[in-house]
């Protein structure tokens, strides 16, 4: 009888341990990789010197932009949702005379046929739907897309000194939803920006 009890207790302990892994294992979710930027033909060359391979500047960019909950307007008039974004030369070191740290931006999903900045439907309910937004330089009030299109996007700023900053306004006009059948548009949207930085001669930038 005693042997039977020992056997039962040991078996119960073994079975308890076999349950634990099933509880601890967690499902993984898919993560899509970001798209890779394309070719560049506008480059600057800085003579090799001290600190080759070292970090020579640090730029800060917005990590993401969230336009929040969008609302269908009642009238066919502009109804923008705006967000602020900042691109800043956190540190610039050893920049040769006549050169700048140029920062460009483009929509990660931009193509030859569409350069617009946009957020794209992520759910089955809004698959294929896109909402376009604009990026404006706060200081000049210029829409970035009206500027020169460089191979790696539109010029955000050419930074010379530590602390140089460009403030941007991102605006999504909810008027795009006016008159639309909302059940075809409801759901989550997502878009990403691809920034590009390089040391460029002032003469190569408009």
């Amino acid at each position, binding site marked *: 009888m005693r*042997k039977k009890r020992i*056997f039962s207790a*040991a*078996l119960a*302990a*073994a079975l308890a*341990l*076999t349950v*634990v*892994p099933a509880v*601890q*294992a*967690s499902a*993984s*979710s*898919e*993560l*899509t*990789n*970001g798209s*890779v*930027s*394309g*070719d*560049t033909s506008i*480059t600057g*060359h*800085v003579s*090799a010197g001290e600190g*080759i*391979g*070292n*970090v*020579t*500047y*640090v*730029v*800060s*960019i*917005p*990590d*993401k932009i969230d336009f929040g909950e969008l609302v269908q307007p009642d009238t066919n008039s502009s109804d923008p949702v705006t967000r602020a974004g*900042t691109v*800043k030369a*956190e*540190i610039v*070191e*050893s920049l040769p005379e006549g050169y700048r*740290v140029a920062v460009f931006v483009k929509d*990660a999903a931009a193509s030859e046929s569409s350069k617009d900045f946009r957020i794209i439907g992520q759910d089955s309910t809004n698959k294929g739907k896109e909402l376009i937004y604009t990026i404006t330089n706060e200081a000049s009030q210029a829409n970035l897309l009206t500027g020169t299109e460089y191979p*790696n996007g539109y010029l955000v700023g050419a930074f010379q000194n530590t602390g140089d900053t460009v403030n941007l306004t991102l605006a999504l006009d909810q008027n795009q939803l006016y008159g639309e059948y909302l059940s075809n548009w409801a759901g989550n949207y997502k878009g*990403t*920006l*691809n*920034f*590009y*930085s*390089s*040391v460029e001669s002032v003469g190569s930038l408009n």
Partner: protein
Amino acid sequence: MNRSKKVNKRILIITGILILGIILLSAAVILYFRQSEERQTDSSAYIDENASDWDSQIDSEEPETGKMLIPGYSSASMKSGETMLKLRVGNPEENSCYLKATVQLEDGTVLFESDLLKPGKGFEEIELNQTLEAGTYQAMVHYQGYSLEENPQELNSMDSAFTLTVTP
């Protein structure tokens, strides 16, 4: 009676060995999944275990929330026939996001790819997946941001371009 005792003893021993085997197997499975969870954030992105403590060596103020600090470079050089490149690739410790670094040529040829780098982690030099012939190349480090969540979400990205000189 003796035979019955012997049989019982044999059954007891076999049962004991089986139970011990189950316990050891379970422990191994638990250990495997624990290590797997620590390393894995989702099915297609991993924390880079090869990265070490990394300092951008440039003092910068802690950024406001909602920003990513991205390192930039002017140039890098290496010798043809070698695969080690002295290029300080890493995620500034001031960041509150992962960065995944991909070093590539302007034609899209990928030379090096990291897994997710935690803030304050990176490499002093990297090992390319191929050698390059002598010459001057336009290259970039593609830094892709990911949120620091259990299942990291894709954030914005930045390409830091530089000139890569390969000497004979």
